[in-house]
């Protein structure tokens, strides 16, 4: 069993053919890396935006709802291409890794060195744990339906708890200006953002009031439901655009 488990997968090429196909692998990987760093980072900046940029936007209601919903998009599309055509279960992890490369580059160079924000005030969220699980579910199930339902839900449900170890400590309260604030709120007050005043924060607003203070699980389950619908939508988008017919038309 152990020997069988360690067997390398077979491949149809040897010699020069194998060398050339390997060179092609690296070429595609480098291109994909830059493509996903740029495209996925832009997508997240435009859709998740301030919720990911600032500490004082990472609330219990909107942040866990919007972030997974907008971040499951590219992983689903890329999984559709890589799994359907190559049986590579790494689409989600690849997308999230590229996103984090782009995000950390901008947080350090644009936010910190160019605009002087301390990096801890602009720490990004991570969705790598969710992405790993999404890839694993796809590989083990080989099913879009199962991955949509269980993978999509896990993707959303894991988001808040996997980020709490990073951001929980910023919710320690302080007395400031004769009121109670979190350290995250204090970043928003102290570190001046001329174009993003406090009232623009879409935080803690909505109708999740009936269940007392348990807003986060409700948001997470709402996001889970939406992610299980968003996943197949973007899967089929990815599949539809993974075609050579546009090249043939040129």
């Amino acid at each position, binding site marked *: 069993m152990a020997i*069988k488990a*360690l*067997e390398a*997968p*077979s491949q*149809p090429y040897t010699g020069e053919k*194998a060398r050339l196909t390997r060179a*092609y*692998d690296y070429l595609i990987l480098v291109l994909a890396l830059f493509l996903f760093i740029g495209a996925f980072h832009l997508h997240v900046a435009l859709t998740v935006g301030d919720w990911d940029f600032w500490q004082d936007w990472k*609330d219990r209601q909107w942040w866990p709802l919007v972030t997974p919903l907008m971040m499951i998009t590219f992983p689903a599309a890329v999984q559709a291409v890589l799994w359907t*055509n*190559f*049986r*590579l279960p*790494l689409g989600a*992890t*690849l997308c*999230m*890794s590229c996103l984090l490369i782009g995000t*950390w580059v901008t947080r350090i160079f644009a936010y910190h060195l*160019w*605009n*002087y924000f*301390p990096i*801890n005030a602009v*720490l990004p969220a991570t969705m*790598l744990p969710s*992405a*790993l*699980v999404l890839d*694993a*579910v796809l*590989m*083990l199930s080989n099913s879009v339906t199962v991955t949509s339902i269980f993978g999509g839900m896990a993707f959303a449900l*894991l988001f808040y*708890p*996997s980020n*709490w*170890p990073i951001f929980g*400590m*910023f*919710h*320690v309260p*302080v007395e*400031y*200006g*004769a*009121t109670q604030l*979190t*350290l995250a709120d204090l970043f928003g*007050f*102290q570190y*001046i*953002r*001329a174009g993003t005043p406090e*009232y623009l*924060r879409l*935080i*803690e607003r909505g109708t999740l009031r009936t269940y007392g203070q348990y*807003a986060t699980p409700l948001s997470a389950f709402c996001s889970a439901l939406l992610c299980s619908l968003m996943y197949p939508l973007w899967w089929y988008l990815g599949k539809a655009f993974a075609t050579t017919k546009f090249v043939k038309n040129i």
Partner: protein
Amino acid sequence: MLNAAKKLLGAFCLSLCALTIAPTIANAHGEKALEPFIRMRTIQWYDVQWSQDKLTVNDELVITGKFHVAEDWPRGVPKPDATYLNVSSPGPVFIRVERYLNGQASVSSTALKLGGDYDFKIVMKARMPGRYHLHPFFNLHDAGSVMGPGHWFEVEGDSAAFANQVKTLNGEMVEMETYGLANGVAWHAFWIALGAAWLLWWVQRPMFIPRYRMLQLGQGDALITPLDRLLGVAILLGVPLVVLGAQSMTDRAYPNVIPLQAAMDQIEPLSPAVNVGIVRVKIQRADYLVPARAMTLQAQVENNSDQPVRIGEFATANVRFLNLAAGLPTSDDAGGVIAKEGLSVDAPDPIQPGETRVVRITAADSLWQRERLDGLIRDADSRLGGLLFLYDPSSKRHIASVSTAVIPKFD
């Protein structure tokens, strides 16, 4: 065709070189960009002052001032139900340590009342060395940024010396510049390492063409090995376990945490300081003479005080037209753009107690054009607004917030 393309490419390269070799510093941040009627008839700033303009890192700068919320609020601008007193600066080169509106500490957004009078105090702390232009300003929801007067500040010293310590409710002192950074980076590094390991696991073996070929040959099952599946199961079980364990540890480490705070500050206006009623001013007509860059206000002044008064200043959108020829004091404002002899009155004699007089006040200066206020005549809402300052012999000040439609004269 080829030559044209070459020329175009050459021109592009030259432009690029010109832009990169000789960059110019942007010294403004859009303070004149907002339409004039919004700048004139929303937040009317006066008496703005700053404690010092040369600082070293960690020094405090105190900005104080007053503003009147215009009664004639433009119809096209949402009412000030959500506003934020801010400071325009090139990023957090200063931090905002304290802020007060009408003496009340304020850390959040607030609603303003039309016709209300407010004073403010903002305490800043220098963080980055450099030369910066700061304005107090108001973010108005769905309307834009209404700038107060601006001023240049020089900060010396070393940014590494900056400290920003805060005491939490648990009694712990934390340094805001570095708090939680190492922990955040460590968690990111941990997950990135796991993600990279998963990617390398697949990248180390032949990828695209061989795998595609095998799928086409119906050998797709061979592409996922039993060890791959084992790893998948490990991820499926291990990742949630780590996530939930780490969450539980964080909860234990920080038992007293609260959600982000989203309340608005409730701040009532001061007792009226503008349009008090002792000296009433009503503008009957305003003409703007375009070639002369002069605004003439026909104003009915009703002096109900027991002292004669004279008109000393007209201030609008941070431009101050002074009547220095009359030898009157001016508002206590360290900023703004000033036309020292820009204001004249056709009947300079004091308006006596109990007298009601119609006077013609002329505010003439190129500042109407330079500050882009003359665009008012081409605005959809071409009504003028501003503060008129009148003084009695003891230098006591009466302030009137005035507004009226403007009639342009093009020749």
